[in-house]
């Protein structure tokens, strides 16, 4: 079977910095893969490369057997830096509608079929009522569900979710993961789901892809989340502790993933309400 995403000795560079170097792995169709690793390890760059926004500097990258194309309808995408203007009075239906054929010139219009498709997709993530609610009146969790619905509109075969759990509290994180898991399982969608913390994804993911130090490791949690593999990827000595169904990735006694989460908030993801 053709892999959903396949990198062969691929090197990804962004702004002159090598993010991934000579990396090879293959993601199977229908797989739910958690993408993890320290900040700057290349999670976002990898997704942008799959979207055809930054072609590999060396080696090859194929999406369902083909070179990535910008604007590929088979890929649903939920970007990490979500520029949501805080006071935007646009209702959910128009927000999602704007992304349908959004690259075409001319006046925006939605056919009855498209409206129904949006409504059904909102329904599938349990957010039917958001169609008529303005964005500015939605909570963080509701906005996230709206964005997820948008990524699912148009029957994608591959879903790239870049840090969809940021800005959600623990309860909403769990709900979001469950919804993605359920919808993608039903439709056979391949998922790349990047996150800061492994424990959120335990039990939901089929495999994990750890990125770090220009390298990548893809495999079952037990194969990848080990002291030797992670020490190599983080470039520092890592201890992996398992306790009470949780996994703690520690460096010199500190939880490295917890620290990474704090760091990201410095970049301000528009949560100053």
């Amino acid at each position, binding site marked *: 079977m053709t892999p959903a995403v396949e990198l062969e000795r691929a090197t990804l560079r962004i702004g002159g910095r090598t993010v991934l170097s000579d990396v090879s792995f293959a993601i199977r169709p229908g797989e739910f893969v958690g993408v993890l690793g320290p900040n700057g390890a290349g999670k976002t760059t990898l997704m942008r490369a799959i979207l055809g926004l930054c072609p590999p500097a060396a080696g090859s990258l194929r999406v369902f057997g083909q070179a990535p194309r910008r604007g590929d309808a088979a890929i649903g995408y939920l970007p990490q830096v979500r520029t949501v203007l805080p006071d935007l009075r646009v209702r959910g239906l128009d927000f999602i509608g704007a992304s349908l054929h*959004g*690259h075409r010139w001319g006046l925006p219009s939605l056919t009855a079929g498209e409206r129904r498709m949006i409504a059904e997709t909102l329904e599938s993530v349990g957010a039917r009522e958001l169609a008529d609610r303005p964005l500015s009146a939605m909570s963080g969790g509701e906005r996230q569900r709206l964005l997820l619905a948008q990524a699912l509109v148009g029957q994608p075969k591959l879903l790239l979710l870049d840090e969809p759990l940021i800005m959600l509290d623990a309860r909403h994180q769990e709900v979001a993961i469950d919804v993605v898991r359920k919808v993608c399982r039903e439709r056979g969608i391949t998922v790349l789901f990047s996150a800061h913390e492994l424990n959120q994804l335990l039990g939901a993911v089929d495999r994990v892809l750890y990125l770090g130090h220009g390298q990548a490791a893809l495999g079952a949690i037990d194969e990848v989340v080990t002291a030797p593999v992670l020490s190599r990827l983080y470039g520092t000595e890592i201890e992996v502790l398992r306790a009470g169904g949780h996994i703690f990735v520690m460096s010199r006694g500190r939880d490295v993933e917890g620290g990474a989460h704090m760091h990201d908030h410095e970049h301000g993801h528009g949560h100053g309400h």
Partner: protein
Amino acid sequence: MFAYDFMINAFVAAAIVAVVSGLVGFFLVMRGQTFAGHALSHIGFAGATGAGLIGLSALWGLVGFTLAAGIVMGLLSERISNRDVAIGVVLALALGFGLLFLHYYTAFASQATALLFGNVLAVERGMIVTLGVLGAVTLAGLAVIMRPLIFASLQPELAEARGVPMRLVATAFLAVVALAVAECAQIVGVLLVFTLMVGPPAAAQRLTSGLWSGLIVSAALALAEAWGGLAIAFYTDWPVSFCIALLSAATYFAALALSGLGPRVALPDGEA
């Protein structure tokens, strides 16, 4: 009041400009680029006075300068068009140049007030035709870019991933804004373009959250404010631009009050 030709001309000119301003301004507010629109009008002032200096008509100086400035802003997009300080500095510089041009072309000085605060009562037939053509070009441009513009405004990261030419869209939009500003300045003057380009769309966005309904309400409010302002001015003898500015502000604050709780209503329950 319709017994006077100049009033009829004023009503027609105000209608053209109000509809164009209300529609274009809707996207200016949606994109959070209102200050850039304000700056364009000030740059237009330098253009208009500069045109007077070399013997061209003020309108074409205004159009030429705002259009050039809009395109440059669009091309510099990320770096400048959303940065208040850079825009503010350029805006002040443009006004300064406008003053310099006035200084060297004193015969023009009587028109300075008209440029700054508008003079809709002096609009003639020929100007109406010009405004109509400019308005049609502006709206046609807006219609062509509208779909990718909305997408790029609401979700720039996703729009880029889907293949929307972001810089082209941003630049084309600012060119459209530049034309609308140049027209708007004919009615209410460069200092008051906010009254027609920002007030009505901002009020419309408080009143409705649909896209088409928002556009319609925005254009309708701009039209009502422009005509209402003319009528009030006719009976009170107050300046027209003041009356329009007054109605625009009153409508905006009424819309805020109607929509409930002022500018912020989001309840972020899911914040980490």
